[in-house]
């Protein structure tokens, strides 16, 4: 019998090793798996490479993981925000490596990893400093830059509901990077608001089929947000 439900965020992340590449879903706070990030902070793994759209907001969640100096490198599109002070301080002190990736290229590199694509040409960033040193090619009169997939060891994402097979539905714009990160990681761990019986999710509206999901943790609504 397949049962991907796991008792706690701590159990779900117990085997995450030092040096892992970890995708973390969310765009700002929407879709950020706060309980899983808190568990990762408690778990102690270090020297991590993190993939997220941002580089942490205020003092909780990803920002707290950065502050704890557990992250060696971050791949993101938009690190600098009014409340990204923990990232800003580490970056200015040279204590974190930044790979800045245009947001659509970030999404497509993640998607490519999950879809078995070896590399792809995108028009984004051609002629800019973010394309420096990258292979370029003119196809049908348009210029493109070669980009490679981003694979991860773990993806930590947030969905709204899941069944024990790991089928997922999301809520509003909290979906964002969830479905593509789920497919791009060797081990995908999902924080959900509600677990439901197999068959309770309409097959026509399942967004992420369970094949992309390894572990599901139900998190009480009061713990869904960053503390």
């Amino acid at each position, binding site marked *: 019998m397949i049962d991907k439900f796991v008792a706690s965020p701590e159990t779900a992340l117990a085997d995450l090793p030092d040096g892992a590449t970890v995708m973390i879903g969310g*765009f700002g706070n929407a879709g950020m798996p706060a309980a899983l990030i808190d568990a990762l902070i408690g778990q102690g793994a270090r020297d991590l490479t993190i993939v997220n759209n941002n580089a942490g907001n205020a003092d909780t969640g990803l920002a707290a993981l950065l502050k704890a100096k557990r992250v060696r490198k971050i791949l993101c599109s938009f690190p600098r925000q009014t409340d990204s002070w923990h990232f800003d301080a580490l970056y*200015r002190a040279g204590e974190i490596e930044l790979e800045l990736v245009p947001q659509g290229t970030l999404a497509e590199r993640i998607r490519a990893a999950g879809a078995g694509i070896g590399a792809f040409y995108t028009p*984004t960033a051609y002629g800019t400093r973010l394309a420096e040193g990258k292979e370029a090619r003119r196809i049908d009169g348009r210029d493109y830059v070669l980009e490679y997939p981003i694979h991860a060891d773990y993806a930590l994402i947030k969905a709204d509901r899941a069944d024990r097979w790991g089928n997922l539905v999301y809520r509003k714009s909290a*979906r964002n990077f969830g*479905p593509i990160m789920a497919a791009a990681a060797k081990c995908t761990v999902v924080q959900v608001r509600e677990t439901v019986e197999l068959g309770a999710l309409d097959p026509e509206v399942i967004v992420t089929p369970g094949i992309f999901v390894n572990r599901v943790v139900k998190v009480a609504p009061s713990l869904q947000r960053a503390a």
Partner: protein
Amino acid sequence: MKKLDKSEIAARVARDIPDGAYVNLGIGLPTLVADHLPKGREIILHSENGVLGVGPKPAPGEEDEDLINAGKEPVTLLTGGSYFHHADSFGMIRGRHLDYAILGAFQVSVAGDLANWHTGGADAIPAVGGAMDLAVGAKKVLVMMEHLTKKGESKLVERCSYPLTGARCVNRIYTDLAVIDVKPDGLHVIEMVEGLSFDELQRLSGVPLKRLASAA
């Protein structure tokens, strides 16, 4: 001369958006355009984080942290709106499905190069977000900006001194002084604010401008 304020620039941009258009409003100044879309036109706003049919700001107390725009502000969804993941969202952008992207700018060159993501300063932390995707992907890129910097320097330049967001991507520029089209042979002034002469606009801009016969 009567310069347009930010809200008036936004209203001027909004007038040019036709019924049925799919539009992405960049962070900052362009978000004001949403408040001025002409009544009676169905215009569908796209947000990079996976929303088509972005509606107005929610009433106080009605905010939903799962429903935000690219600027991470709470929004609502229009009837008929939809949600999708990030790769689909940027597929819409790069795949030339959006009719307009309306973006802010530090500088625009006479060739239509756009610089809007990074000042290039040694201590500046770069952040690009979706700007480069929007610059290359939308069918038309409209720039909305003040004509001059706070120091009085023209934001229209021969070559951008700031790092580029995209090369030759801007179609039209709306400033507090004028509306200017970027064409293969240079910048064409199609409107100026009341009381501004073409010669004065030319002097302030510092790059060669062409005057459309019908420009007031």
